[in-house]
């Protein structure tokens, strides 16, 4: 059961109702940022308070919660959030993507394809995709209202003019349901295609910026691009050293004091599951695997 003396999932009922009303409007207008009255959580901003408020409004005692931070289940941030909901909502937690009903994430989408019963909750630091181009909220709101996204295309085109390609490799803007340009949060652009027509429900919470938005299942999510410069999700050109995967997003890890480096899956559950099934990379058996990094 949940911790006595606390509200179920920490938030009071009035706050949950407010967040739930915002979530339903967010689902009804895919990609549109719904303002909400963000509340204090017992973790600092930057630790995913927006995602935590969304999870708290959605989670129930029958849920199984997974929390990832940059693909890993065992960072301080991920462990704290998991423990928080185990205590306040009495939920079961897991590191396995396939077992989870709710996955709260910072900066990754799991490699294992999500299914129709699952909800992915993103922690979002900056929900406004146009903010770097236009600091004024009234202006960005007007641009979304008129679907006036020329500025975003100009910015991407400048990148092409300067570098010969779009160099943006994370938080790469997407067009949702053919209408609203949306920040996918700082996930690698490699993960963008996983959002497109996903059978799972995707919810986004920005605590400091007080915004909630959503992508319902089977909704079109297109990465912005040009006909002559199509979207290319970026990924290191190497297999995972531990499990040999060639189709997963990799982190480059320094493995010794002589500057030795190793590419390994950023999604630790994906890598562990593959290794358990007998897949072996060139550096299989490396101490890194045992440490669960």
């Amino acid at each position, binding site marked *: 059961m949940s911790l006595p003396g606390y509200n179920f999932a920490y938030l009071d009922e009035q706050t949950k109702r407010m967040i*739930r009303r915002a979530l*339903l409007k967010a689902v009804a207008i895919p990609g549109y940022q719904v303002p909400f009255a963000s509340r204090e959580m017992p973790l600092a901003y930057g630790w995913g308070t927006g995602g935590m408020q969304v999870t708290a409004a959605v989670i129930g005692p029958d849920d199984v919660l997974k929390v990832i931070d940059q693909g890993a289940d065992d960072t301080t941030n991920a462990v704290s959030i998991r423990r928080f909901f185990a205590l306040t909502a009495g939920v079961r937690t897991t590191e396995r993507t396939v077992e989870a009903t709710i996955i709260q994430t910072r900066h990754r989408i799991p490699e294992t394809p999500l299914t129709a019963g699952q909800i992915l909750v993103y922690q979002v630091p900056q929900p406004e995709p146009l903010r770097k181009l236009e600091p004024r909220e009234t202006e960005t709101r007007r641009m979304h209202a008129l679907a006036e996204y020329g500025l975003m295309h100009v910015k991407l085109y400048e990148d092409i003019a300067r570098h010969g390609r779009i160099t943006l490799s994370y938080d790469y803007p997407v067009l949702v349901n053919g209408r609203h340009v949306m920040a996918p949060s700082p996930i690698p652009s490699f993960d963008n295609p996983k959002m497109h027509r996903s059978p799972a429900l995707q919810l986004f919470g920005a605590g400091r910026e007080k915004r909630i938005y959503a992508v*319902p*299942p089977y909704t079109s999510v297109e990465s912005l691009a040009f006909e002559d410069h199509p979207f290319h999700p970026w990924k290191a050109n190497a297999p995972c050293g531990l499990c040999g995967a060639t189709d997963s997003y990799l982190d480059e890890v320094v493995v010794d004091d002589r500057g030795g480096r190793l590419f390994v899956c950023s999604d630790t559950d994906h890598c562990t599951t593959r290794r358990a099934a007998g897949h072996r990379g060139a550096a299989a058996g490396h101490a890194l695997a045992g440490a669960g990094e």
Partner: protein
Amino acid sequence: MTALAPGFVDPPLAAQAVFRRLLDAMARPGMVVSLEAPPAPPPLALAAGAIALTLCDADTAVWLDPALRTAEVVAWLRFHTGCRIVGAAEDAAFAFAADTVALPFDRLPIGSDEFPDRSATAVVQVARLGAGAPLCLAGPGIETTTRLHVQGLPAGFVAWRARNHVAYPRGVDVVLVAGTQIAGLPRSTAVTEG
């Protein structure tokens, strides 16, 4: 005065369970979903009552159509949710309707281009879900197209939905309700007959 029907027995858990099914229904338009609903004063449908208990409070303006604006329903909603009951459909955050003839859909707030979320959610009672005339649905949350059978849909509903869809991203979101069952029709769903 007769005793008021009770609300949720364990409000945090009951409201979470109802909200989760409602979220599911809005994320997968046309899917018929059952709610665990406590008793509600007739003619308020059980699922409509459960939605009010889950989402309405002192911060929400609730409009009731003449069929639902009975002393019992008003007293029950006020006591359990503390919501404000408003007389004008134009002021509604939530509109509850049971009349199948005269519906003020075009008077409900649809939000602005800047704030399309400042719009009403209409909880519309019908005779049956999963039986009756078919509606064809398409849009976010639906893999290709899907059919929702509804008995007792209000007159002019499909024509109103077409006008509502043209106003996107402004618009009213609908939850159809029959007994303890619900089906979501967010503004993003294109609704046609057949």
